[in-house]
């Protein structure tokens, strides 16, 4: 059992806002005294962009990825070369989350084509005989809550076979009428999406009603912009043939790591607030329709066969 290195960030949830003080300790522990050539702490923040295979070729997608954009990068030497005593040594650190120049601390985001990540890295340089020790630790940056109260913008919607787009033979669709409303189309990311949905009538038995959360990511690159919509999560809100004219709640907690507030920069763009609702209407067990709403406007994306 050799020496181990660990970073402990003070906040349990590891969430910080721009301008706040990030503090914590680096823990060095080992049975024997540790000889080292210096202990360094690096803060790094990058935006990684990946091109979608759809907009460019597969190879290009693989090789031609856009260069990461650096948001923040600084290194300090925490401890001068020397020796740690045996046992546990805690070295506290603290630094303000500020960026140089006109750069902005974007929110941490793990998407498909866009990744924004912040890491703390601690390196212990050692002599030639021993390997250098490294420990990385991600911390999360959230942008400060918006000032002023968000005005809710409720929206009502109705779905019928007629409102569906991209349907080849509309006549084959069973008749149905679904009404509903969303409490707001602008959502605070920490609050769940809420609303209600009422199946007024449906000719065929309903098998399932699902709520789909979709994001739109746009990346800029040499060939121009690539825009992609991908599913974040899919939540079932009704299972089986629900009672008619009884409101079923719409409720979805945003997965925090995979969503971020709508963001637009020169190089990339991330949009959320896209949500879809799927109604699987079973008739003879094969046909299903899929409906999607964007910002409250029903629009049909595709029709698949289950």
């Amino acid at each position, binding site marked *: 059992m050799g020496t181990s290195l660990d970073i402990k960030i003070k906040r349990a949830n590891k969430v910080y806002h721009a301008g706040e003080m990030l503090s914590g300790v680096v823990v060095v522990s080992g049975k024997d005294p540790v000889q080292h050539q210096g202990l360094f702490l690096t803060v790094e923040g990058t935006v990684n962009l990946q091109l979608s295979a759809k907009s460019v070729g597969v190879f290009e997608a693989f090789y031609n990825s856009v260069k990461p954009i650096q948001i923040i990068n600084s290194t300090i030497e925490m401890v001068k070369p020397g020796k740690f005593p045996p046992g546990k040594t805690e070295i506290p650190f603290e630094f303000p989350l500020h960026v140089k120049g006109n750069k902005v601390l974007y929110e941490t985001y793990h998407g*498909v084509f866009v990744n924004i990540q912040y890491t703390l890295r601690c390196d212990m340089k050692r002599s030639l005989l021993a390997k250098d020790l490294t420990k990385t630790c991600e911390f999360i940056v959230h942008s400060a809550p918006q000032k002023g109260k968000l005005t809710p913008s409720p929206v009502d919607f109705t779905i019928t076979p007629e409102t569906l787009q991209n349907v080849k033979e509309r006549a084959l669709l069973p008749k149905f009428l679904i009404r509903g409303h969303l409490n707001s189309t602008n959502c605070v990311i920490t609050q769940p999406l809420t609303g209600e949905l009422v199946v007024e009538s449906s000719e065929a038995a309903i098998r399932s009603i699902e709520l789909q959360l979709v994001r739109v990511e746009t990346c800029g690159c040499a060939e121009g912009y690539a825009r992609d919509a991908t599913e974040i*999560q899919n939540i079932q809100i009704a299972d089986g*043939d629900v009672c008619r004219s009884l409101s079923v709640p719409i409720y979805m907690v945003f997965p925090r790591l995979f969503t971020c507030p709508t963001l637009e920069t020169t190089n990339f763009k991330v949009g959320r607030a896209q949500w879809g609702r799927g109604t699987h209407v079973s008739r003879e067990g094969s046909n299903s329709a899929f409906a999607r709403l964007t910002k409250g406007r029903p629009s049909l994306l595709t029709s698949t066969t289950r």
Partner: protein
Amino acid sequence: MAPADGAAWALREGACPSQSWRRGRCSLGSAGGSLPLTIMAPTDGAAWALRSGACPSQSWRRRAARRGLCGRATAPHNHGGRGRAGPGRELRTGGPRRRGHVTGKMAVFPWHSRHRNYKAEFASCRLEAVPLEFGDYHPLKPITVTESKTKKVSRKGSTSSTSSSSSSSVVDPLSSVLDGTDPLSMFAATADPAATAAATDSSRKKREREDNSIIGSDFEPWASKRGEILARYTTTEKLSINLFMGSEKGKAGTATSAMSEKVRTRLEELDDFEEGSQKELLNLTQQDYVNRIEELNQSLKDAWASDQKVKALKIVIQCSKLLSDTSVIQFYPSKFVLITDILDTFGKLVYERIFSMCVDNRSVLPDHFSPENVNDTAKETCLNWFFKIASIRELIPRFYVEASILKCNKFLSKTGISECLPRLTCMIRGIGDPLVSVYARAYLCRVGMEVAPHLKESLNKNFFDFLLTFKQIHGDTVQNQLVVQGVELPSYLPLYSPAMDWIFQCISYHAPETLLTEMMERCKKLGNNALLLNSVMSAFRAEFIATRSMDFIGMIKECDESGFPKHLLFRSLGLNLALADPPESDRLQILNEAWKVITKLKNPQDYVNCAEVWVEYTCKHFTKREVSTVLADVIKHMTPDRAFEDSYPQLQSIIKKVIAHFHDFSVLFSVEKFLPFLDMFQKESVRVEVCKCIMEVFIKHQQEPTKDPVILNALLHVCKTMHDSVNALTLEDEKRMLAYLINGFIKMVSFGRDFEQQLSFYVEARSMFCNLEPVLVQLIHSVNRLAMETRKVMKGNHSRKTAAFVRACVAYCFITIPSLVGIFARLNLYLHSGQVALANQCLSQADAFFKAAISLIPEVPKMINIDGKMRPSESFLLEFLCNFFSTLLIVPDHPEHGVLSLVRELLGVIQDYTWEDNSDDKVRIYTCVLHLLSAMSQETYLYHVDKVDSNDSLYGGDSKFLAENNKLCETVMAQILEHLKTLAKDEALKRQSSLGLSFFNSILAHGDLRNNRLNQLSVNLWHLAQRHGCADTRTMVKTLEYIKKRSRQPDMGHLTELALRLPLQTRT
């Protein structure tokens, strides 16, 4: 060497002692018969001549003559003792071996009984009674707790109790330990203020009502429902478990085409965190299914214990997914029970884990903590759980898993639970299948009641939501499903009952009357509300239902025939009425209305299920006439096609209810249809069970002995049924139980002064219950008691008639005893009956009993079975014989059978009996015989039987009698000494020592030590006891002290001299 001595040896060693006894007995039995050899070895020629001259039997003399002829000394035993050449040491012709002085000098010692003055001894032995002044301390004086005062210090009910104990000045050690309050009165003290406070402080009670945040013990917990549901909802169809432990490729197919493959896999990983396998288990029987679920429960615990939290979560998700599957719908309630067990386990594990994170080294979180006390790490972990669960794709697992960890909201915020519950309630609306959704509601109510019982609103919301979706049950989707599964509506609807009952129960718990009324109204409004009605009846307070019984009957009648089965409704109503009483005026009408419907039920099963419940109501409020009518109706319904065969449990329960309410058996048996009802139990095992129940109740409730012919007839029949069920395969325990019950009945039968009637009852009982030994034993005891009762009534002076009756009793016993199997039961009963016969002046009968007992002794096996284990019987025999000897003392000799014929016979039997090789029991018995004979030689015996002349008055201390007696003593002593001699081997020295000492004590107690030879013998025994250092020094010292003390008493001066001759061996 003295020839006499040799003769003695010849007898003891040369001739087989057992034979000699036998012959001796023969000779005694037939006076004047010639005998080749006998036991008696006269040493003292003169004495012998004297005695034999007086001997009533001629044979003695002849024997004495023979004695001389066989005076050939045989090889003596090597005693093995290194003889100190004492005065008695002699060399034997047979060998140059040395003998120890006791046995060496052993001649036949004459016996001289000490004269006893029992009265004087008794007087001197009795403790002097010292009158105790009131208030004096005495340890056995009862501690009287005069008062246990409770003082109410404050309203909150903290009490201090004081109690003053008895007036004795010395503090009682027991109560002083307990700070002056004994634990019982302490309990009473603490319980009391609570009761009074509750009664008086009504405002406080009200407050308690309002906030009732704690579920009281009157709330029937889920655990008690669990087993019932599992037992009731079963299936024979094959079940399947479908577990996707891996990725759900099939279901993800609905994703948009815009989603790249990479994204899809990543999203799938969100659902299923590790790659696994899809398991589909088909064709499981119900038991397999239960086992699988149990395995899953175990693997959940294992995964959790091995820190595989994700796997644990996955198991839970997959399990709760099973609840969306309604394929074998009859099993659904049981499946719900099984799977919610897993969810409960999971919820507990998560809660405990987060709770343990809040515990620092320093402080432990109190039970009622607030979120501020919870540290960040715990909060973060808790949030993580909720986020993770919120992203579960499917609705039903998401609902169940979140509900299972509802309690964890306490870590996050104070209002967490109260916000979550309504949201989860709404979420259930998304569940389309009405059965699945009602069970989801039941689960939510269950969790809600556990975590936050004060949040009633969401309970009510659940109920009203349910009412809104109620119509779905009759919708197409459900109907189609039922057709596919081949399930009828009347069997489908009861599947809702457990869930609905639970929801209703939660709502109605401590609910105000108005809410209940409102709920009822809302139920009424819906069409086909039988299902609701049933749940209302099973969940609401019985009092509430009972007061509205007539309304309910009306509603039940209006229900649709095709839906929920009506008999279930009546059953539920009946259950309520059994618990709570309806208004007095309605009672008969209720019964009439209900029974009108019940009696029309076609299916005997449905009918009997209903009737079973209503019988209780009938028994409770009506007389035997109504009960008889009801029973008649049951008989009428159950007899066709032998329908009763399928419903024994229900019929049994009807009987139980009836007998529980009719404690007076004369009334019970006058219920016209009761016995015909019993006839329906035609399967023997069930019939016996029912009979047992009846007898148990009879034994429990019958206070007075009875002679009511109705009761006797009926119960004899019942007992006969029980008795006749006994066969070779009946278990011991079962027999014991039956015998106990029958005995209980026999003891309760009394014809008062009509003893003859009583005896004829016992005769009848004997003929009926001959297969149960304990019953026969009981009968014999009862008859003996009867004889003694007669004696008591006649004050000991039997008239001609009563004497004949008593002899009849005795005869009864005499012919009954041989039919018993247990040898000691027989022996003891012979003895006991003999004593009774003796007490009733039936001398020849008593003789017969004793002779029978004596002739039975040789049959006593070496080992007997006691409680299933084989034990040596000798100790029991010893015990019995000692008892027997005490009786023999007072048995007068038969005028034609010679002196002490019974004792002689008994001695013969003892001699012949094959004793254990290494036991001294035979000698112990001989010692007892010696005591008996000593007692017999007294002028007046220690005790007598009233109106029976014992040998003391018969012989009047005749010297011939005494001589006979002494002769017997000598023989017995010779046997004892003989035995002592055989114990001279190394391993037996200890036994020799103790036996020697006990013999010494016997001589000391009963012998006249003024006789020189006896005196010498006792000295020798003393030496023998000490010789090998085996004696306990303390005992020896005590014995010596006792002798010295005795010597100071009058007429005991000779003991002083004896004491001087008894040296104490010091151990060096």
